[in-house]
């Protein structure tokens, strides 16, 4: 296989005696949607923080387009075309939606007018076109998630790291958000996403990594991964897969 867009090579992160992420390796292929799933506390967000430059790894190396980016600060990564969203949204609350997105657009555009124009285009792309003049603080959760996505997109990123952009949305909001995300790959954008909403992972991701207790449990296509007994046990506890199949209710 060709050199992946991102290659994580044996990365670990220790907080005191706790190994939040333990010797994890994974790769993100260009032009695809790769998902990272796993139960709460598995280390997904920590791993994300390391890939996006917010946390330096305790061990291991990270590569982007074949070049090492371990420990490179996030603002430099953004200039390389890597942008992330936050699980707990971080809007620039005092600014309007338009101004929020323009901050991202300023990365490659110095002039205010250019940045605002590009921001308006991105806003329409993610369905915020009607809300440009609202303050970010007045948006609903769904709106704020879209704003996170819009700002990251406006930087002109070619790799988006999406940390639970669907969490907290109701089913109808998820249904409208999924095509928005899928459409991005058509624009040549590669996506690595952390997601709990399995319905979305199944329909969006081409490749899934399952993280549990800081380690990669398994990887593969979404269908293969959800049928894996180890994955079910990681979520539901030891023996769960056996009990499910014994009860005849599981399709394991």
């Amino acid at each position, binding site marked *: 296989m060709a050199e992946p867009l991102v290659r994580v090579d044996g990365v670990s992160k220790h907080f005191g005696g706790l190994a939040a992420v333990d010797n994890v390796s994974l790769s993100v292929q260009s032009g695809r949607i790769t998902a990272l799933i796993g139960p709460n506390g598995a280390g997904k967000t920590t791993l994300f923080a390391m890939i996006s430059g917010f946390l330096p790894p305790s061990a291991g190396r990270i590569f982007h387009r074949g070049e090492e980016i371990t420990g490179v600060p996030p603002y430099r990564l953004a200039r390389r075309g890597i942008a992330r969203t*936050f699980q707990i949204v*971080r809007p620039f609350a005092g*600014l309007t939606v338009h101004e929020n997105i323009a*901050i991202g657009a*300023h990365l490659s555009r110095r002039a*205010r007018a250019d*940045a605002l124009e590009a921001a308006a285009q991105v806003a329409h792309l993610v369905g915020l076109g009607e809300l440009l003049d*609202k303050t970010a603080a007045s948006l609903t959760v769904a709106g704020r998630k879209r704003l996170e996505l819009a700002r990251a997109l406006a930087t002109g990123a070619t790799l988006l790291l999406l940390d639970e952009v669907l969490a907290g949305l109701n089913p109808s909001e998820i249904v409208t958000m999924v095509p928005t995300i899928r459409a991005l790959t058509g624009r040549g954008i590669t996506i690595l996403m952390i997601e709990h909403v399995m319905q979305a992972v199944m329909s969006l991701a081409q490749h899934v990594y399952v993280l549990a207790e800081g380690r990669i449990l398994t990887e593969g296509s979404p269908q293969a991964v959800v049928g894996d007994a180890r994955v079910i046990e990681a979520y539901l506890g030891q023996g769960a897969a056996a009990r499910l199949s014994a009860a005849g209710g599981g399709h394991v």
Partner: protein
Amino acid sequence: MSGPSMARILLVVALLATAPMFTASNAVLNFLTVTLMIALVAQGWNVLGGYGGQYSFGHAAFFGTGAYVTAILQVRYGANAWAAFVVGIAGAALVGAVIGALAFRSGLKGSYFALVTLAFAELLRILASVTTITGAGVGTLVALDLRPQAFQFQSRAPFYWIVLALFAVSLIVVRMIEQSRFGAWLVAVRENEDAAKALGINPSQVKLGAMTISAAIAGAGGGFYVQYFLFIDSGIAYGPWISIEALLAPIVGGIGTVFGPLLGALVVKALGEMTMLLGGDAPGLDLVIYGCVLILIVAFAPNGVAGLLLKARQRLTLLNPLRPERPHG
């Protein structure tokens, strides 16, 4: 970012410039001159505190450096006053850059940043009170030389116009920052540093730039002070009084707005004068009044006088059925 147009800024400056034509009273002109000087220093604070969200408690460090460099270059090295004034501004900017680099590199934020700026200002005050080049405890006196080329004037009006011109420049600089990418990045850092980083902004660099500009503007206020009063000592230059005035005026007037520092300086200075009329010269009484004003503003008008004015205007347009304008959302 929305803000006043350049035309409105120039209109306000032009109106202020007519003041000496309405009054020949030295007391009034003195009041306006000192108020504009405070507004100038406050505008400096506003760049870093209002737009960048970094609350400095030590803008005396920049005011004092601007003042001392302007005075010392003239008195000890025979430099031209105008040249000394320009070097003073550069010196203040340098001090701002050095303190900023140390503070932001170490990742100091919030109250820690405030404490460190306060500590630097106090350090400079103590140094200035013992070293010979500053005149130590005696202070430095600039020789009387009432010629425009010495940055000294027979009457108050030229001083007033000069401080107004300096303040006008600061207004324009702040407005330009508001409309620039640098300004957008600065506000982004104020609103959320992590989100800013994720969007390609280097917060330390942006804050450092803001602090340097901020210090230069405050330094201009210090240099003007020396030319106006012809005397400086460590307590005036680096004392807490100017650090307090610098942050009080923008907070009262409207933090992170172009006209906030001017509105705030007018309110605060007018209150100070009134206190003097009512209570005489009781030491510290003006500070008590300032404290009360600050509490009232923070409690009831978090956006300062500028915020109150905006709200009042929106009410008026809402009440007027002939001009049905959409209120701001």
